[in-house]
């Protein structure tokens, strides 16, 4: 059932995108930057998450938690880092690294991973 929901979310996202290429570019961006800590599939298990990693990175597959975040919350934490939303500085600010379009793409990509929408 969860799989069907995820597929539906992917279909919905795909229909919103101007070009499918954009989605694949976003996946490249996600896997290059975010997956280091959040894991390739969004389970919060990237190779940086060793036993001394002081926090648990957000699991994007966790729909319950992700549904509590607005798209604006997600944008803020990506751009300005964890402290921008009272979370850990282990999430660094990516605002000087990513373009606005890349961040927008990532927000959509995370919504696919969680198969959820914001409040």
């Amino acid at each position, binding site marked *: 059932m969860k799989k069907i929901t995820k597929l539906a979310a992917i279909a919905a996202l795909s229909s919103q995108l101007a070009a499918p290429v954009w989605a694949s570019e976003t996946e490249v961006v996600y896997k290059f930057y975010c997956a*280091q800590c959040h894991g390739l599939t969004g389970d919060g298990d*990237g*190779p940086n998450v060793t036993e001394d990693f002081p926090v648990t990175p957000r699991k994007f597959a966790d729909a319950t938690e992700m549904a509590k975040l607005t798209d604006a919350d997600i944008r803020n934490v990506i751009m300005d880092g964890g402290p921008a939303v009272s979370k850990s500085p282990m999430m660094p600010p990516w605002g000087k*690294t990513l373009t606005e379009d890349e961040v927008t793409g990532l927000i959509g990509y995370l919504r696919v991973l969680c198969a959820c929408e914001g409040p």
Partner: protein
Amino acid sequence: MKRKLTLLASAACLMTAATASKADPSAGQATFEAQDCVACHYTEGPARETTIEDQLAKTGPELWYAGDKFVAEWLTAWLADPQPIRPMQFNSLTDENPGDHPALDAGDAADVSEFLMTLTSGVVEEGVVRVKKNAKGRQIFTKKMPCSGCHQYEGRGGDIMGGRTGPSLVDAGARLNPDWILAYLQQPETFKPVKMMPVFVGLLSDKDMANVASYVANFGR
């Protein structure tokens, strides 16, 4: 007279020995090419990568600014006995570093190191960073903008701490030029325009970047 001749002879011997043991950058370049090091490492700047795909297509780090980046003695020793610097294989989030970098014999290592140390960007200002136990740098490295999230380092009890996607910084003090660390933080677009590490320009002041460089360059000293 006899003593003078002996001195001259000794000086001549020393000069011969020095000449014989002096590393040769031209020979090093020839070895670098003959060993096909260029298959993984490019040596002519400026940086070529403009997209993530460009970066992912590489199989080893660029070396066109090796002379800015490395400490010569470390580089010579490493080329003769290469040990993994990155916990993970270059550009991989799934595979461990296999530690299979080819080793050179001592003479070739000295020559190749000499060659690589001639490669510079021209933008690194020398003598800027003072290496010391830098409390401010430590606070940034471990807490404020935790470099430790992606880079290994030696914790207070001697334990190896930190993340695994970036190069280990455990022996950074022996390996890296402190002034290059600062320049790398200040001018990421010059050295590595596309990289997994965030850009900190505009987030950390030049002073704080120098503090981080000072702290990191003290590792292993």
